[in-house]
């Protein structure tokens, strides 16, 4: 019944499928990103309240959503790794961690740089900022745990367990932080995020950048995972053949 899953979990199949797919994904990704960013930076009328600094939103919002999405994907991979012992899932989860931490950190940095001109401060202990900070801590903890193990197998199993513990815990952390914030903050000063009122000419570049960043995540993920596959499958025949044929340049 799970035959297809095992087939999909075959590193060779993944490698072969992505070889043809990756260049196209990369081209589409760069196209979307360049169109979206140029459009967002130069061709969208300035916000009547925030002026030009709202252009940071075009990277900030996709990064925030992306970081959470990446965690969800990493958790699915960790579950597949734990339940069905699919090695490929772990290789993907490993690549997710570095990218997720980057997206999370970028979300915080861009948010901070956006906060200074709009709220007058780089950092407030707002619920969303605080949850994002904690998500970053969890990403870092998972990477730290994995690299602390000498045995790669144990390290990836341990990282998977921690990822799954995080899945249960992160929503609780989020709600605790929201509650804590309402206790301490009173009315939030985030009155400016009236996204729904924005006309299409404001959000359409965000659509391009958002899709572009999803594409970017997947192309980086695939490239990293392919490296991991080459390293982990180095004893298998197909990798040895691939590497003996000179057409595979470094």
């Amino acid at each position: 019944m799970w035959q297809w899953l095992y087939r999909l979990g075959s590193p060779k199949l993944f490698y072969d499928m992505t070889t043809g797919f990756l260049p196209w994904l990369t081209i589409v990704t760069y196209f979307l990103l360049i169109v979206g960013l140029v459009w967002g930076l130069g061709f969208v009328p300035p916000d009547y309240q925030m002026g030009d600094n709202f252009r940071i939103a075009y990277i900030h919002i996709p990064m925030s959503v992306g970081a959470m999405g990446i965690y969800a994907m990493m958790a699915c991979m960790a579950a597949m790794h734990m339940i069905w012992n699919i090695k490929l899932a772990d290789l993907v989860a490993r690549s997710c961690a570095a990218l997720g931490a980057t997206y999370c950190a970028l979300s915080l940095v861009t948010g901070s740089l956006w906060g200074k001109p709009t709220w007058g401060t780089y950092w407030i202990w707002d619920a969303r900022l605080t949850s994002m900070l904690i998500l970053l801590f969890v990403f870092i903890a998972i990477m730290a745990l994995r690299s602390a193990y000498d045995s790669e197998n144990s390290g990836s199993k341990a990282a998977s367990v921690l990822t799954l513990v995080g899945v249960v815990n992160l929503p609780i952390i989020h709600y605790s932080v929201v509650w804590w914030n309402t206790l301490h903050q009173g009315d939030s000063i985030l009155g400016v995020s009236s996204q729904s009122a924005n006309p299409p000419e404001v959000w359409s570049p965000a659509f391009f950048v958002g899709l572009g960043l999803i594409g970017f995540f997947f192309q980086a993920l695939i490239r990293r995972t392919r490296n991991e596959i080459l390293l982990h499958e180095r004893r298998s025949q197909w990798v040895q053949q691939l590497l003996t044929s000179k057409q595979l340049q470094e």
Partner: protein
Amino acid sequence: MPQFQFDSLGDFLSMGGDAFFVWGAYAFFAVSMIWHIIQPGMQRRKVIRLVRARMQRDQQ
């Protein structure tokens, strides 16, 4: 068709006075993205070199 919203290049670069924040955010973004473009390539070169070296060692 969207119009370019700035009168001049200098105007564009100053971002309505928020140049530091807007370009700062985009600079962080660009550096991280470039890192994630370059890093897998370097990793790949390292892995291929390592695996080829091991194959040669095994053949001897």
